[in-house]
Structure formats: structure tokens, C-alpha cells
């Protein structure tokens, strides 16, 4: 076993032991830190419970549609900003103002515009995903080596060939990085919107468990959410790596 693997195994063991000691010590309010066995049992019960999948599907729908809308529009706008220096200089200051803003404060506005159902959550995911992707696309478009574009022109490449064989491969790594960041914030934005006002979704499920003080169930849902977020991020990375290898 490599040293790295040993360090990871020891860390996991140490964290698990510390958790179990804390759960049994009585130092914290009873039930706030349940034993890992209770959490695993709660997770198994959640995953075996059919209504859980309704909530999961609703959240996935909101995240994926919102992320798709946000990142697609961000790639288009970011490319336009990057390829047109005038457009870039005109819009970049406003992107810089809105990009670091916490998008959750727009939720009341989105609820007014799109209602309290899935629409506002999709919109929240879209605006959350938009900014990291537009910034990354803008940076990627500006850094496309001009010599490649000139060589393509010298071979009389069409606009479509230029886009598919020069711009897209050059811009793909920063766009993928932006999309990974965008997916993370889209998931956070959607879940927060579900926590605030929803009747379905994993965020709603988590807050239901919290309000009923079903703490092991709350931990189980959170662990499932974390695992899904990490897996989704890893999937994007792997898909991109396969694309680079072509």
C-alpha cells in the first residue's frame, strides 16, 4: 500500500473514531451527533424508500435544467466577450460586479418572476452557474493563440471548422473548469432555494428532517447530497479528459 493510501486510511479511521467518541461522550446535545451506525441505517432506509427518489428526481431536474441553461448562455456570451475585445471591455466590469454576489438574495425576485415551484429553483441554478462559466469562457476565448487562427484562415477553414477545430479545443479546458465550479454553485443555489421555500427536493427533505429533529435522517440526506455533488464533479472531469485525449 502506498504511503498516500496509508495516510488516507489512517485519516478516515481517526475521523471515524473521533466521531464515535464525540457521539458517545455526552459532550454535545444528545442526538446532534449520532453514531455512524445510526447514520448508515438511516441512509439505507432513505435509499430504500420510494418517495426519496421523487425528491431526488426533482432536485436533479432543477439542477440539470438550470445548469444547462446557465452554462449554455454563459458559453455563448463569454465567447462573444472573449473574441470581441470591445464587447469584453464593455461587459466585463458588470460581470465582475455580479459574479461575486451571493445569488441567494435574488431568490425573492425569482420567486416573484417564476413562482414558488420548480421554476424559481431552475432560475436560481441557472444564474448561479452562469457567472463562473462566463468568466472562465471569457478567459479561455482571450487566450486562444492567434497563430492557430491565422493558420486555419490560411487553409481557408470555414467558420464552423474554425469553431470546432480551433476555438473549441483551445477553450475547452477553462470552460470545463468553469463548469465544474458552476455545477457546484448551481447545486448549492438549488438546495438553498428548496430549503427556503419548496414542497419537494432534497433540500426540502433535509429541512423537514431537521425540523422534526430526525438527525440521523438529516445526516443521511446530507451525505447523499455530498456524494452526488462530488460524483457529478468527477464525471465532468472524466468526460473532459476523454475529450482531450481524442
Amino acid at each position: 500500500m502506498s504511503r498516500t493510501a496509508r495516510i488516507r486510511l489512517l485519516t478516515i479511521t481517526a475521523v471515524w473514531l473521533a466521531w464515535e467518541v464525540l457521539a458517545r461522550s455526552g459532550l454535545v446535545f444528545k442526538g446532534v451527533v449520532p453514531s455512524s451506525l445510526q447514520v448508515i441505517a438511516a441512509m439505507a432506509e432513505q435509499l430504500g424508500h420510494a418517495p426519496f427518489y421523487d425528491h431526488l428526481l426533482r432536485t436533479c431536474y432543477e439542477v440539470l435544467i438550470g445548469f444547462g441553461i446557465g452554462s449554455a448562455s454563459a458559453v455563448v456570451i463569454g465567447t462573444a466577450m472573449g473574441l470581441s475585445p470591445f464587447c469584453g471591455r464593455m461587459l466585463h466590469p458588470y460581470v465582475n460586479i455580479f459574479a461575486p454576489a451571493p445569488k441567494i438574495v435574488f431568490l425573492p425576485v425569482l420567486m416573484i418572476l417564476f413562482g414558488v415551484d420548480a421554476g424559481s429553483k431552475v432560475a436560481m441554478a441557472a444564474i448561479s452557474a452562469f457567472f463562473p462559466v462566463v468568466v472562465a469562457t471569457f478567459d479561455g476565448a482571450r487566450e486562444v493563440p492567434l497563430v492557430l487562427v491565422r493558420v486555419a484562415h490560411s487553409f481557408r477553414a470555414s467558420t464552423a471548422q474554425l469553431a470546432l477545430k480551433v476555438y473549441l479545443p483551445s477553450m475547452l479546458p477553462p470552460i470545463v473548469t468553469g463548469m465544474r465550479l458552476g455545477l457546484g454553485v448551481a447545486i448549492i443555489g438549488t438546495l438553498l432555494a428548496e430549503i427556503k421555500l419548496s414542497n419537494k427536493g432534497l433540500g426540502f427533505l433535509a429541512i423537514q428532517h431537521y425540523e422534526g429533529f430526525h438527525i440521523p435522517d438529516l445526516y443521511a440526506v446530507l451525505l447523499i447530497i455530498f456524494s452526488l455533488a462530488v460524483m457529478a464533479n468527477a464525471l465532468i472531469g472524466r468526460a473532459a479528459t476523454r475529450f482531450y485525449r481524442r
Partner: protein
Amino acid sequence: MRLQQALNRPWLAPASGLALLVACVLALEWAGHAGWISAFFLPPPSEIALAGWRLGDEEPLGAAFMTTLMLTLSATAASAALGITAGWLMYRHGDFGRAYEAWVGALFSAPLILLYPLFLVLFGRNLFTVALMGFLAGVIPVVLKTFEGLRGVPRVLINVARSFNLDERGILFKVLLPAARPAVFTGLRLSFIYCTINIVGLEYLTNFGGLGFLVGRMYDRFDIPAMYATVAFVLLVSVLGFWAAERIERLFTRR
């Protein structure tokens, strides 16, 4: 060619952006007064501006603004101190760095703010809990970027420093950190963004205080112009923080 030259004038793009913004504001003002856009969805900008003025008298706007700003700055400062230290430790002990890098990267995409109900129970419903949640989200990009920046320092710089008998402390402060400064400051900017997002989000969700709470309160009262005005103040916190981060980075770059 002439068009290209005209477009390259340095003042034209910012002026066009400002003109576009003014045009949008005027269009919204006209559309609101003409009844084309319901004031319930989007009030005219003049009403939003007046509501902002009114907020100062009717609501603890100043206190809320300072609460959010101070929480964000303190969480960012704590993230900077601990994040840079952790990033350096991961670099210094390479095996641990390699072991934990993927995990820290995975935490970056994890929605840690969802732990807030548990933190409220563990630490109480107070400003410390809000700042702690902000810190947890903000420390991760600092750790990642510091580690990345330190690993990118050219080996030759360290070897030259060692050849001049510089000790570990000297190498850290005179070679490693200055060379890793761009990456570290990128991490600090990301840290500020994530701290702001989590702190304002938590204020909004828990109705505890700060600008996030004020946004929710105005929405609950159906005071839509005041709600938009409060959102504008939240944007102001972001802008101020970013401006401060740029100033600090320039200060360090000049030395």
C-alpha cells in the same frame, strides 16, 4: 479598419457599457410608469432608489450592512490565516499534500452550507455560527490555491536560496510566498466570494440579522422596492470586498 481603430479607443468600451446601463435603467423606468412591467415584479428604478433612502430611516440598514461586511471580512481573514498555513503544511509534507489534495478539491464542490442546521444546534443561533459557516466555505479555496501556488514555485529559486544558507523560515517568506502570491491572492478572492455567499445565504435562511435577513424581511412585507434596494446593498458589499482585495494585492505586489 477605421471601425476597428475607432473601437480600440480606450474610453469607448467603458462609456458604451455605462450608456447601455443608463439606457436599461431609463427603459425600465419608462416601462414601469407606462404599465408595461408590473411594479410587483420590477418597480421603476426611481422607486428602488427612494426605497433605499427610506430603508436608512425605517430599518437598521447601517447596522445590517456593517454586520454583513464585518462577518464576511472576519471569515475571510480567518480563512486566509488558516488556509495559507494549511496549504503550506500540505506543501511542506508532500505525502500528506498528495493524500489530501483530492479530498480538499471534493470539499470545494460540496454544499457545506447545508450543515447549517447542525451548526445552529451545536454552536447556537448567533453571529459566531454564521461567521463559522462562512469560514468553512472560504478556507477551502485558500488551501487549494496556496498548495497549487507553492508547488508551482520553480525549484531553482529554492536551490539558490539554500545555496545562500537561507533557513526554512527565510525560504518561506522570501522565496515561496512571494512566488506563490498570484495563486494565493486568487484563493483569497475566491474565499471572499464563498464567504459572502454563505454568510448572506445563512442570514437569509435563518432570519438572524444582516443584509440577507433584511432582503427576506422586505419580501415578506411585500415591500418590493425596498427588497431590490437591499439586494443592491448586498452587491455593494461584494464590490467593496473585491475592490479591497485588489488594493491589498497591489500593495503586496509593489513591495
